[in-house]
């Protein structure tokens, strides 16, 4: 990146056209312009510096004769075919041909360099277009928050300028959208790294279905102090994830599994039947799953109110749940309580559910999300002082379309509730998906922060366009051409979608200093002196 820290800027082009929101400039035919590149239009008359983002680059020629360029290409191609490359040079190509960059005007810096304003005026025609200086981004410095994710990106170059989000924005939900291989996991780990270093200001619950983050997060220098890992199977250096049936609810079941209406009725019937005799929550799943013969149970105990085949489906699922290693019938076990405690201390809680099926994973996530929302909302309502001190937490959902799609039962599903109500309780979602088009529009509109990595599907890009808190309507091509690790960050803090290159997790681990050693407690005699 030719970002210059002073001195005269090299002219990259001259503005010649378009309007307040868009700009077009002419550049030399060999000017290497990239989609997403940030450039500055220098208005000498007003002293303003207009920040532009390149959204398209095309060819231009001085020759107005229709088809001239195609004919030249044909001539050169003919030379190539005959093995006579160079037989027809294009004299003075730098004068006769050029490049035209179409840009979005992001806004302008006031002459004093302190204020950045949305574009409402037109820079003087033929203003010079130059590479930005580092100081051109100073206005962003206060808006990049305390959770760093990478560096500012201009086209394919990195600018020495940290990009991140305010940790408080975790409560207003974060979306991470990318196709496979574009860097979702790395970005998530980098975000988690920021939370690890946040000194307890933020907490993060990360339900990891593939076990890919456990060893990676453990490498962070702050992991020993601030990372807690729970695993559904026996893994070294992890706490055992054992969810008591008593902690689960019918709503968790309804969130995790697809139930028909009769099956839901059966669930309620069974819950009513077992009532308080079996214990709290889903404790009744245990006696129910142990039934050998459903027919008499149905006839006698349920008075035939549930069809036998419906009951068989529920029974099969109940047995599967009860037999899971991570499910315990012991009502005194409470992993939910431990995890909530970790989160209130501002830790990153990694729940490794590798080995569980997708529905069981959702069951665990649903249960934990509900516990967290209950804890935070309870504190908000009953203990406002404590709530004030509680960290902002985010619940990370991989393959978020499973629980945030428009056809999910909203009544029982805790995740849409978090999306709609979580913000005021300081509980947010961090939804990760390859297919944002499958997310519910209304829920997506609750997400104030988007990390958009490479997305090939136009429908996915369109859905984000409609919900993004910054205008990304002209950035379709850029999003399509993002390389792994490159992203656009759209949130309310920055005045435009900020292009960024996400840090590599391995680099974050390598360069992060270890946490400071805890201060020694003063010896009693010394503290007495102080008193």
């Amino acid at each position, binding site marked *: 990146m030719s970002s210059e820290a002073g001195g005269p800027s090299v002219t990259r082009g001259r503005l010649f056209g378009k309007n307040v929101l868009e700009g077009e400039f002419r550049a030399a035919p060999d000017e290497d312009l990239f989609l997403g590149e940030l450039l500055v239009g220098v208005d000498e008359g007003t002293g303003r510096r207009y920040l532009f983002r390149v959204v398209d680059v095309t060819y231009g020629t*001085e*020759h107005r004769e229709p088809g*001239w360029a195609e*004919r*030249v290409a044909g*001539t*050169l191609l*003919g030379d190539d075919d005959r093995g006579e490359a160079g*037989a*027809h*040079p*294009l*004299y*003075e190509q730098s004068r*006769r041909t050029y490049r035209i960059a179409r840009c979005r005007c992001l806004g302008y810096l006031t002459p004093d360099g302190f204020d950045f304003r949305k574009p409402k005026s037109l820079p003087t025609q033929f203003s010079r277009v130059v590479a930005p200086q580092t100081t051109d981004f100073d206005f962003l410095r206060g808006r990049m928050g305390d959770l760093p994710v990478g560096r500012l990106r201009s086209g394919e170059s990195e600018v020495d300028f940290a990009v991140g989000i305010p940790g408080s924005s975790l409560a207003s939900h974060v979306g991470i959208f990318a196709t496979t291989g574009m860097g979702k996991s790395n970005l998530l780990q980098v975000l988690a790294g920021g939370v690890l270093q946040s000194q307890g200001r933020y907490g993060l619950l990360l339900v990891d279905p593939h076990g890919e983050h456990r060893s990676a997060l453990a490498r962070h220098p702050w992991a020993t102090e601030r990372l807690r890992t729970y695993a559904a199977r026996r893994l070294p250096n992890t706490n055992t994830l054992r969810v008591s049936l008593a902690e689960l609810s019918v709503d968790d079941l309804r969130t995790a599994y697809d139930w028909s209406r009769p099956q839901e009725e059966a669930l309620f019937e069974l819950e009513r039947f077992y009532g308080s005799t079996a214990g709290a929550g889903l404790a009744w799943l245990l006696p129910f799953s142990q039934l050998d013969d459903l027919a008499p149970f149905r006839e006698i105990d349920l008075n035939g109110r549930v069809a036998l085949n419906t009951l068989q489906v529920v029974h099969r699922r109940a047995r599967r749940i009860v037999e899971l290693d991570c499910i315990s019938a012991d009502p005194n076990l409470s992993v939910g309580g431990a995890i909530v405690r970790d989160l209130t201390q501002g830790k990153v809680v990694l729940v490794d559910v590798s080995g569980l099926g997708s529905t069981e994973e959702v069951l665990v996530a649903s249960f934990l999300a509900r516990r967290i929302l209950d804890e935070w909302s309870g504190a908000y309502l009953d203990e406002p002082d404590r709530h004030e001190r509680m960290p902002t937490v985010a619940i990370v959902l991989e393959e978020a379309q499973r629980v945030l799609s428009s056809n999910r039962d909203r009544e029982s599903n805790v995740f849409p509730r978090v999306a709609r109500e979580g913000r005021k309780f300081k509980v947010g979602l961090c939804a990760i998906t390859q297919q944002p088009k499958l997310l519910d529009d209304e829920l997506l509109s609750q997400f104030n922060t988007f990390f958009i990595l490479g997305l090939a599907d136009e429908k996915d890009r369109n859905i984000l366009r409609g919900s993004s808190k910054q205008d990304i309507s002209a950035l379709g091509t850029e999003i399509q051409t993002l390389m792994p690790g490159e992203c656009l960050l759209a949130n309310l803090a920055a005045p435009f979608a900020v292009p960024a290159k996400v840090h590599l997790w391995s680099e974050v681990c390598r360069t992060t200093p270890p946490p400071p050693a805890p201060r020694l407690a003063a010896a009693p005699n010394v503290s007495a002196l102080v008193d």
Partner: protein
Amino acid sequence: MAVAAPPLPAAPPSSLETAAARLALLLTRGGSDLAEASGRGDLEFEAVVGLRPLPPRPAPADAWAVDGGQALVADGRCVQLVVTRAARVRFRSGRCVLEDEGELRAAVLGPAEAAVARSALQLPGLASDCAVDVNLLRDRWEWDAVERCLFEAEPGAIVLVDGDLQPDWRIPSTFLASLLERAGERGVVLVGVTKHSSLSRGGAPLLGQLEVEAAELFGDRARWWAPLARTRPDVGYGLQVVAARLDPDARFAFRVDLPGDVDPEPVLGALAALCDDAGFPGYPYPLAVADRLAACPRWLRQEVRMQLEEHFHRAGVPPQVRERAFADRHDLMERS
């Protein structure tokens, strides 16, 4: 009993049908009589047009190109303000080392202005009663630019002129004779290239016919040339006129005028080396540059017009007087 209706008389052909039929005949009937449609009548054509292959040669180390441009700035019909300029370009070893768009010269034309305009031409030998129009103005200064090129060119150089080598008929032949003589003395060759020639054979465009014949004779991708005529015996060795296709990828062949005493083939071979630009194969690239520089586009006209208005203002010419004198009626009165 059915009675057959008498046949309707055939409708007379429309004027377009008649014209199209005539053109079709001209383009296809062939013929051998060579002519130049401009009607100057001073070309002595070859009895037979013989096509010859044109071997390429190295480009001249020094090549110049001259072209003129003009614009009508204010038109009061009986009195006009025109501007002309003559651009010069120099290429050395394939690189453009001079781009001179030429001084923009303004002149007032009209029956009452002829004496002043003639005097401003600074051309000895100009008939004292000759009319002065924009063609004469442009040609005068274009040939002045040619003269300066000759003076500055290195021996062995080529000076290219847009069009034929015949200045406006009002320019005394002594001027051209002197120019050609000095060029010969300095070893510089003047070459005129006409993009769209009015030469004809059998009433149809000649060069198009030669292009077809040459393609049959030499193939599609051949450089070729053909002597066509001689002219202007009044100036030194006179001039020779040839047709030439100067690049294998050229879309068109051009008329090329040369001094009568030069061997055409080596000059044309060297000229061909200047015609390899991928943008305009077959046309000398220096001339394309000169053409661009000399052009007087609309914006230039408007700028001069604004300067003129400023002068009018300072001279106290009321706006309505200017308006009545120079308003473009065609622009103002919308034509359906």
